């Protein structure tokens, strides 16, 4: 027990000593907080940006709500790629974001996805209600979850389907529930299931839910970081736009 305690203390001391060096080493890098649904594309764009400029991007993925809370508590992020257009505005209003840097980098599409069911007519599958679990991202924190609830509401199925909802902490975890077969189907982002057979994916009608504008913003932490601004400019550029549309988003 004493050995254990000593080694833990040693470890903490080492971390404390190591921390200042670590920050010094990454000063010219970009720390990006990225909504989980944008994981794949952000990774590609960051790699292309690195190849083009030599600046390194550290990507932190998570639920938009969680990332925003972390930012508001001094999270060391330079840019914030939200899954909605509310949190970026809140960030500016609350003094964490830089005024005027807020822009829509992608518009998300909600789909119903199942590796096992035929979803050619997704609405009919939902109405038939012959499943046990449907995965949805937490509607209170994840915009795709809120959009999924809007689609269910439009179909008049909120009451019938609600007892079968299993809530993923974010859109990535929701896909995990479906991919492991624990939930037969679920609402995810089109970007997560691009390339799957057409019968497994049902594109919810855009009129059924409010458009998911995904906005990015420069954060105060990155205000003096030229690489962070360059990354946001790169995100607005043609090369990034091609990756974004190819990945299942639209642009404004």
């Amino acid at each position, binding site marked *: 027990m004493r050995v254990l305690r000593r080694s833990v203390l040693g470890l903490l001391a080492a971390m404390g000593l190591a921390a200042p060096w670590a920050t010094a080493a990454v000063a010219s890098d970009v720390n990006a907080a990225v909504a989980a649904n944008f994981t794949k594309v952000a990774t590609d764009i960051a790699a292309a940006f690195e190849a083009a400029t030599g600046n390194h991007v550290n990507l932190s993925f998570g*639920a938009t*709500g*969680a990332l925003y*809370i972390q930012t508001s508590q001094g999270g060391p992020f330079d840019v914030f790629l939200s899954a909605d257009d509310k949190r970026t505005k809140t960030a500016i209003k609350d003094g964490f974001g830089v005024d005027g840097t807020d822009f829509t980098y992608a518009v998300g599409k909600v789909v119903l996805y199942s590796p096992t069911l035929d979803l050619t007519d997704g609405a009919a599958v939902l109405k038939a209600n012959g499943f*046990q*679990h449907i*995965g949805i991202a*937490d509607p*209170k*924190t994840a915009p795709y979850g809120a959009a999924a609830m809007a689609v269910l509401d439009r179909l008049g199925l909120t009451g019938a389907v609600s007892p079968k*909802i*299993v*809530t*993923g*902490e974010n859109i990535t*975890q929701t896909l*995990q*529930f479906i991919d*492991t*077969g*624990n*939930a*037969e189907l679920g609402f995810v982002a089109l970007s997560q299931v691009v390339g799957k057979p057409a019968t497994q994916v049902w594109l919810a009608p855009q009129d059924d839910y409010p458009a998911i504008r995904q906005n990015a913003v420069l954060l105060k932490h990155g205000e003096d970081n030229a690489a962070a601004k360059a990354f946001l400019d790169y995100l607005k550029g043609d090369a990034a736009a091609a990756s974004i549309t190819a990945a299942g988003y639209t642009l404004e």
Partner: protein
Amino acid sequence: MTLTDISSPVVLTTALAGVTTLLLLVLGTPIAWWLARTRTRWREPVAALVALPLVLPPTVIGFYLLIALGPNGPGGSIAGLWGARTLAFSFWGLVLGSILYSLPFMVQPIRVAFETVGEEPLEAAATLGAGRWQAFVRVAAPLARSGFFTGIILTFAHTVGEFGVVLMIGGNIPGHTKVLSIAIYDYVEQGEWLAAHFLSLGMVVFAFVVVTATMLLDRRFGRLTG
């Protein structure tokens, strides 16, 4: 924030920790007894297996459980008995996960207590005509009671504090799998800090009471047996 929002996770967490502790007491005692007394060369590998959840990240346990509990794993076959497809997203799925996750917290203290009791009292009991079961119930178990108390308290507390495993296999269903730690995480994420504070402060008080109780018990038993 309503009263149910607060009370439901508290009740659920207490039930989960209670059921897990009871089942682990039943499962863990024979394992601890065997580990304390066996002379086979398999002892250390089995002990390591039992201790594994101490070292593994909860996400690893959660990930494997998600697969094992699902329709492609053994959990799915079991769930099929009553027409369900998966053991994930259910109270009993969480119980299974918690048993795995808290196993070392029950087995370790009991094993150490049994080892401390040693051979002599059992040999004496045998000389006096006690059978093996009788020797266990009347001699070994009472002498090892501090180990049992520590195991029970640690298992209960550890299950209450569980987060990663539940996050991965629970599905956050109010009243079924939305335990305290998840509810707190939710409130923080949603910016409902009043509710988060309320529950978190409760957990701090609970943790303090548990640790103090363990220390007091330890001293009390130390005096009784020492």
